[in-house]
C-alpha cells in the first residue's frame, strides 16, 4: 500500500462523521435505485407469472393443416435449439349441441387433441380431475358443471361431431342494419371464405342475417362420439376459448378430415416481437405464425407497445432520471465539501512533494473506498426495503395489477439489476469526485497553507469594489437586503456581488430539493388521479345503493299491448300538451312522495346508515351549442341535425339526466359551489346546477371530459299531443326520407300499437303540439354530488327535490336511488334487508306498479379501490419520503458546510465587532438570496418535470388538465424552509461554538 493510499484511509478514519455521511449518501443513492428497479422487475415478474398462469408460457402460435408435419418441424426445431418448448392443439371436430346447451355453452363444442406440456405452455390446467391421457377421455370447461343438467366427473358424454362448413343462403338475405362488432383479424379470415369452405375454430359463427352477407354455416360429416369426462378446467384463455365455444380437450382422438392444428412454441433470448416472428417462421417453414402472445412478451421485457405501458415506462424513465440526478448531486456535494474542507491538507501534501496525479488518486481512492462500503450497503437496504414493503403490500399490488391475487407479488431480484445499480452508482461516484479531485490537484500550496483558498473576489467584484470608494458610495444601504437586514444585509449583498463563489452549491441543492419534492408531489397527484379514474372513479358515496322505479305510462301501454289488454278508446287522454304535462307532473310529485316515505322506512333498517337519496329522470332538451363542450357535440353528432352535432339554428339537442337531490343535500351542494340555495326553489323560474366534467373510457385511454361549459337556458320537452293523442315519447334528432338529419326532435308512438298513425315523421312533428318549459343552468360544478357519483358522460342537471312536484316529465318516470353505509363486512346482508324493505314498502301503495327493484353492493368494489389507493399512496409516500430525505440531506450538507468553511471569515468580522445580531442578519440575508436563486430555477425545472409526468399520465387519461399539486408546493416550501433554518442554525452554532481564537489562527491546517 503506497503512502497516498495509507494517507487516504487514515484520513477517512480520522474524519468519521464526514466519512459516514458520505457513505450514507452513496448507500442512499444505491438503495433508491435498487428499490425502484427491483420494484419494476418484481412487478414484471408478477405479471409474467400471472400471464403464464392464466394464458400459458407460449410466445407464438403457428397454424398447420398437417399435425404430423407440424410435429416433425417442432421436433427438429427443439433438437436444434431453435425453440425451447412446444405444445400442440389439434382440432378433432365440432360437437353438436342441443338448443338448450347452445344457450349456456356456445354454438359448438370444439374438440382438440392435446400434445406436449399444455398445462405449462397453454395453461390448460384441470381445476378438477385430470388431463385426458387416452382416446375417449375428455376435459371440459367447468361451465358444463353449472348447466341445467350438470355434468360430473366420470360421466359419459355422447354427441355428434362434425365439420363446420360454409353454405350459401338461397334467397337474397334480408339486410339488417345492425353491424356486428368484428376485429380486423376476423374480417381478414372471413374474406377467404366461400360456400363449401371448411371452417376452423378461429373463425366466428357465420350468420348471413347478422353479418349482412350471403353465408351461413352448418355441421357436416357428423359422426357420433362418446367420451368419458376425466376433468374440468376453470381458466378460459386464448388456447381454450374460440369464437364458437369453449374447447374440450381429448388425447389421441382421430380428427375429422381437413381439421387444423395449432402449435404453441417458446424460444429463448428474443429481443423483439419481430425477431420472434422471424425465428418461429424459420423453424416452421410450412406453418404460418398466426398470433404472438403479446402480453407475455411485454412482461418478458420485449417491447410491444400500448398506451398504459407507455405511461408506465415513461414514468419509470422520469423517476430514474430524477433519482440519478439527485444521487449525483448528493454524492458530488459530499465529496466536493470533503475536499474543500481539506484544501489545507492537500496543500500540505503538495508542499511535501505529492504530485497532482497523486492528489487526484488520493481523492479517487477515497471515493472508491466509500463506494466499496456504501454500494453493497445500499443494495442490501434497497432489497430489504422492497422485501418489507412487498410483504405488507404484496396482495394489494397483485390485486391492483392483475385483478386477483392468485399469483402473489413477491420480490424478484435480477442479478442484472444489481449489476446495473452497481455500475451506475460507481459511475456516479467517480463522476462526482472528478471535479473535486481536479480541484484538489490544483490546490495552491501557499494559499492552502495560509487558509486563503476560499472566497476570493471575482473580476467583476474587483471592478465593483473599485467604484465603491467615494463618500456617497461608502456603506450606503443598498438593495432590499441592506434595507431589511441593515449592515448585515449590506455585507451579504457585497459578498454576493463581489465574491467568486456565490453559494451556488446551496442554491443548486435547494433547487434540487424543490425539484425532488415537486416530482414526488406531481407523481402522487397524477398517479392518484389515474388510480381513481382507472378504478371506476367517482362512484357514489356509500356502501350500498338500492334502486327502484315505477312502470311509466308508455311502459304500461307496451305491456298491455303485448297481452292484449290495451284499449285505445277507453284510455284517458289529456286533450292538450299542457294538460299532458300537468298530468305527468302530478304523477312525478306523487312518486316523489312515495319514495320519500320509502327512504324514511329504509333509514330504519338496522345497521343501515342512511346517507342520502335521489330521483333520476331523462328528458329531451335543446340548448345553445355554445353551452356544451365540443367533445359532447362531437360524441352526439349522430343525434343532432348537422354533421357537427349542432342544428342550423345553433342548438344542441340531447337527452339530459335530471337529478333531484333531497333538499338538504342539494342545499349543501349549492353552498359548496358558492351558490345561494334559495335561488333554486322558484317554481316560476326553475334553476339547475349542471355537472361540468365527467370521466369516460373510450377503450384505449381514460378520459376526463368537459360536458356543460357555460350557463344559460335549456328548453325541456315535457309532452306532446298528436291529433288528440299523447305521444309515447320523443327521439332526439331525426332523418328525412333522404337520410338527412332534419329534425331536432321526433315524436313517436310505440311501434306495435296498431293505432299508430301512418304518417311520415316530418308530418308527425308538424302535427304534434309540444309542451316545453325552460330551466336555467345557473351554475356549473366540476364534481357531481356525492349521491350521484361522476360516471355519467352527457348533460346532467341537479335540482332540489321540492322542485320535483312542480316540474317533472312525462316521458320517463323517475328512478329512485337510496344510499346507505353499512358496518364493515355486512354490506351484503344489509343490502338484502334494504331491498326487501323497499319492495315491501312499494308494494304497500296501489297507485303505481313497480317496474324494477335492484341493489348495488359498492362496499366490495370500494374495498378493491381502497387497496388500489393504498398501494398507490404508500408507493408515493415512500418515494416522497426518500426523495425528501435526499433533498434535505443535500441542503443540510451544502448549507452547513458552506457556513463552516467560512468560519475564519466570520471570525475575523466578529473579532472586529460584528455582533451576533448582525451576524444572524447577514446570514439570513444570504439565505434569502440562495433561496431565491434556488427557488426560481427549481420551480421552473419542477414545472417541466411535473409537465412531463402529466404528459405521461395524460397519455392514458385524455382530457386531464395540467395542474400543479399545490399542497405539495406548500409542503416543498415548508420542508425546504425548515431544512434551511435547521442547517443555518446548526452551521451558525458551529461557527460560534468554535473558539474565535482558534478560528483566527492561521497555522491550523
Amino acid at each position, binding site marked *: 500500500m503506497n503512502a497516498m493510499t495509507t494517507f487516504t484511509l487514515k484520513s477517512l478514519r480520522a474524519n468519521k462523521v464526514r466519512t459516514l455521511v458520505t457513505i450514507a449518501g452513496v448507500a442512499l443513492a444505491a438503495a433508491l435505485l435498487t428499490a425502484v428497479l427491483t420494484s419494476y422487475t418484481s412487478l414484471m415478474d408478477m405479471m409474467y407469472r400471472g400471464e403464464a398462469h392464466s394464458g400459458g408460457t407460449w410466445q407464438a402460435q403457428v397454424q398447420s393443416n398437417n399435425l404430423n408435419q407440424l410435429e416433425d418441424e417442432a421436433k427438429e426445431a427443439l433438437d436444434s435449439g431453435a425453440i425451447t418448448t412446444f405444445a400442440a392443439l389439434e382440432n378433432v371436430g365440432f360437437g353438436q349441441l342441443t338448443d338448450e346447451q347452445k344457450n349456456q355453452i356456445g354454438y359448438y363444442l370444439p374438440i382438440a387433441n392435446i400434445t406436449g406440456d399444455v398445462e405449462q405452455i397453454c395453461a390448460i390446467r384441470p381445476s378438477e380431475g385430470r388431463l385426458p391421457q387416452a382416446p375417449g377421455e375428455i376435459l371440459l370447461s367447468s361451465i358444463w358443471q353449472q348447466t341445467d343438467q350438470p355434468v360430473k366427473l366420470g360421466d359419459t358424454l355422447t354427441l355428434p361431431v362434425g365439420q363446420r362448413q360454409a353454405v350459401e343462403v338461397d334467397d337474397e338475405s334480408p339486410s339488417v342494419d345492425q353491424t356486428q362488432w368484428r376485429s380486423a383479424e376476423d374480417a381478414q379470415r372471413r374474406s377467404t371464405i366461400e360456400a363449401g369452405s371448411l371452417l376452423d375454430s378461429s373463425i366466428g359463427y357465420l350468420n348471413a342475417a347478422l353479418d349482412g352477407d350471403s353465408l351461413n354455416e352448418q355441421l357436416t360429416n357428423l359422426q357420433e362420439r362418446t367420451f368419458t369426462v376425466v376433468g374440468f378446467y376453470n381458466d378460459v384463455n386464448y388456447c381454450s376459448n374460440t369464437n364458437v365455444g369453449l374447447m374440450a380437450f381429448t388425447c389421441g382422438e382421430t380428427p375429422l378430415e381437413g381439421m387444423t392444428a395449432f402449435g404453441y412454441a417458446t424460444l429463448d433470448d428474443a429481443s423483439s416481437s419481430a425477431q420472434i416472428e422471424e425465428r418461429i417462421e424459420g423453424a416452421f417453414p410450412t406453418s404460418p405464425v398466426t398470433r404472438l402472445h403479446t402480453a407475455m412478451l411485454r412482461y418478458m421485457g420485449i417491447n410491444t407497445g400500448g398506451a398504459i405501458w407507455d405511461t408506465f415506462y415513461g414514468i419509470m424513465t422520469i423517476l430514474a432520471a430524477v433519482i440519478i440526478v439527485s444521487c449525483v448531486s448528493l454524492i458530488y456535494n459530499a465529496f466536493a465539501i470533503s475536499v474543500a474542507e481539506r484544501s489545507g491538507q492537500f496543500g500540505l501534501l503538495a508542499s511535501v512533494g505529492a504530485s497532482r496525479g497523486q492528489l487526484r488518486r488520493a481523492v479517487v481512492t477515497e471515493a472508491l473506498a466509500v463506494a466499496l462500503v456504501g454500494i453493497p450497503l445500499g443494495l442490501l437496504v434497497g432489497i430489504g426495503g422492497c422485501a418489507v414493503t412487498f410483504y405488507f403490500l404484496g396482495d394489494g399490488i397483485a390485486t391492483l395489477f392483475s385483478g386477483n391475487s392468485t399469483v402473489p407479488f413477491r420480490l424478484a431480484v435480477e442479478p442484472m439489476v444489481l449489476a446495473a445499480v452497481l455500475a451506475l452508482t460507481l459511475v456516479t461516484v467517480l463522476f462526482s469526485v472528478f471535479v473535486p479531485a481536479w480541484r484538489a490537484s490544483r490546490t495552491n500550496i501557499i494559499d492552502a497553507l*495560509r487558509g486563503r483558498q476560499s*472566497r*476570493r*473576489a471575482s473580476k467583476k*467584484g*474587483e471592478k465593483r*469594489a*473599485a*467604484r*465603491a*470608494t467615494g*463618500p456617497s458610495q*461608502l*456603506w450606503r444601504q443598498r438593495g432590499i437586503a441592506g434595507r431589511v437586514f*441593515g*449592515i448585515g444585509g*449590506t*455585507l451579504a449583498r*457585497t*459578498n454576493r456581488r*463581489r*465574491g467568486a463563489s456565490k453559494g451556488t452549491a446551496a442554491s443548486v441543492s435547494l433547487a434540487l430539493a424543490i425539484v425532488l419534492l415537486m416530482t414526488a408531489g406531481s407523481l402522487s397527484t397524477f398517479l392518484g388521479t389515474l388510480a381513481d379514474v382507472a378504478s371506476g372513479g367517482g362512484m357514489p358515496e356509500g356502501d350500498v345503493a338500492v334502486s327502484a322505479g315505477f312502470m311509466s305510462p308508455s311502459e304500461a301501454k307496451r305491456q298491455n299491448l303485448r297481452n292484449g289488454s290495451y284499449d285505445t278508446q277507453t284510455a284517458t287522454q289529456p286533450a292538450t300538451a299542457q294538460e299532458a304535462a300537468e298530468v305527468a307532473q302530478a304523477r312525478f310529485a306523487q312518486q316523489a312522495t312515495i319514495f320519500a316515505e320509502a327512504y324514511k322506512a329504509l333509514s330504519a333498517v338496522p345497521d343501515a346508515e342512511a346517507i342520502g337519496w335521489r330521483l333520476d329522470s331523462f328528458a329531451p332538451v335543446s340548448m345553445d351549442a355554445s353551452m356544451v363542450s365540443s367533445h359532447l357535440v362531437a360524441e352526439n353528432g349522430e343525434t343532432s341535425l348537422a354533421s357537427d352535432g349542432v342544428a342550423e339554428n345553433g342548438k344542441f339537442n340531447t337527452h339530459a339526466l335530471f337529478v333531484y337531490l333531497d333538499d338538504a343535500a342539494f342545499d349543501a351542494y349549492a353552498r359548496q359551489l358558492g351558490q345561494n340555495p334559495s335561488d333554486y326553489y322558484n317554481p316560476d323560474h326553475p334553476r339547475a346546477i349542471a355537472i361540468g366534467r365527467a370521466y369516460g373510457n373510450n377503450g384505449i385511454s381514460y378520459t376526463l371530459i368537459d360536458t356543460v361549459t357555460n350557463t344559460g337556458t335549456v328548453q325541456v320537452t315535457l309532452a306532446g299531443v298528436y291529433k288528440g293523442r299523447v305521444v309515447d315519447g320523443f327521439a332526439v334528432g331525426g332523418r328525412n326520407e333522404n337520410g338527412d338529419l332534419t329534425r331536432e326532435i321526433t315524436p313517436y308512438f310505440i311501434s306495435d300499437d296498431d293505432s299508430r298513425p301512418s304518417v311520415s315523421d316530418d308530418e308527425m312533428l308538424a302535427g304534434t303540439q309540444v309542451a316545453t318549459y325552460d330551466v336555467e343552468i345557473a351554475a356549473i360544478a366540476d364534481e357531481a354530488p356525492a349521491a350521484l357519483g361522476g360516471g355519467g358522460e352527457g348533460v346532467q342537471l341537479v335540482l332540489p327535490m321540492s322542485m320535483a312536484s312542480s316540474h317533472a316529465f312525462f316521458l320517463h318516470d323517475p328512478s329512485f336511488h337510496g344510499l346507505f353505509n353499512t358496518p364493515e363486512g355486512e354490506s351484503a346482508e344489509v343490502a338484502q334487508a334494504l331491498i326487501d324493505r323497499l319492495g315491501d314498502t312499494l308494494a304497500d301503495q296501489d297507485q303505481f306498479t313497480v317496474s324494477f327493484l335492484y341493489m348495488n353492493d359498492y362496499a366490495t368494489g370500494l374495498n378493491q379501490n381502497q387497496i388500489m389507493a393504498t398501494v398507490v399512496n404508500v408507493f408515493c409516500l415512500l418515494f416522497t419520503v426518500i426523495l425528501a430525505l435526499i433533498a434535505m440531506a443535500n441542503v443540510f450538507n451544502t448549507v452547513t458546510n458552506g457556513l463552516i468553511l467560512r468560519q475564519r*471569515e466570520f471570525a*475575523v*468580522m*466578529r*473579532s*472586529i*465587532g*460584528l*455582533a*451576533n*445580531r*448582525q451576524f444572524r442578519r447577514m446570514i439570513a440575508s444570504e439565505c434569502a438570496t440562495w433561496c431565491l436563486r434556488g427557488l426560481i430555477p427549481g420551480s421552473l425545472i419542477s414545472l417541466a418535470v411535473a409537465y412531463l409526468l402529466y404528459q405521461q399520465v395524460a397519455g392514458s387519461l385524455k382530457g386531464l388538465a395540467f395542474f400543479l399539486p399545490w399542497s405539495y408546493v406548500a409542503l416543498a416550501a415548508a420542508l425546504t424552509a425548515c431544512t434551511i433554518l435547521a442547517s443555518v442554525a446548526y452551521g451558525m452554532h458551529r461557527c460560534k461554538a468554535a*473558539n*474565535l*481564537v482558534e478560528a*483566527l489562527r*492561521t497555522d491550523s491546517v
Partner: protein
Amino acid sequence: MDILTVSHLTKTYGEGETATVALNDVSLSVAEGEFVAIVGSSGSGKSTLLHLIGGVDRPTSGRVMVNGIDVYSRSDEELAVFRRREVGLVYQFYNLVPVLNVVENITLPVALDGRPVNQQRLADLVAKLGLRGREGHLPSQLSGGQQQRVAIGRALMNAPSVLLADEPTGNLDTKNSADIMQLLRASNRELGQTMLVITHNEEIALAADRIIAIEDGRIVRDERIRR
C-alpha cells in the same frame, strides 16, 4: 492614568489531564499612550493574553478592565460593541474581508457600529497609511505590506482605547516591517494611541516604551526602556 488593567488573569484550555494552562495568574496595567511590546517564545501565552484583552476569548478566571470597564462582565452583544469601539486588532496574516475594498475594510467597524463614516478622518488615515490611490482595491490586489496597513487602518479607524497587534510584521520583509513599525510608532506618538504589540523582532521591541516578557503563561520580565 491606566487605561488597561489586567488582574489575576488565567486561561486554561482543555480539561482534566489534558488541560493546558495558557495563562497563569497574570496581572499588569498599561497607562494611556503607552507602547508595550510583548515578547516570549512560541506557545508562551502572549497571543492568549492579547485575545483576552481584545475581548475575543473569555478567561477562565481574573479580570480585564479597559477604560474603566470590566470587559468580561459584558454580554456577547456588548462584547461585540466593545470590540468595535474600544479595541483595534491587528494580526500577522492581516485577516481582511476579501470582498471589501480598502476603504470598506478600514471603515467596517464604523459601519458595524451604524455610525456615519468620518470622511476627514478616513482621508487622513488613508494618506497616513500610504494607501492613497488604492482605495478601491480589494485585499487580493494588494501586497502584504499594504494589506497590513489596511488592517492597521481598520484598527485605528475608531480611535480605540487600545490597539492590539499580534506579530504585525511577522509575515513581512524587512522594508515593509520597518514601514509598519514606523506607522505604529507614529500613531502612538502623534495620536497618543495606546498599543500592545506582540513581536519576535528585537528592533520593534526596543522601539517600545516597555517590554513584557512572558514564559509558560507567566510574566517573567516587565521593564521600561529609557530613552
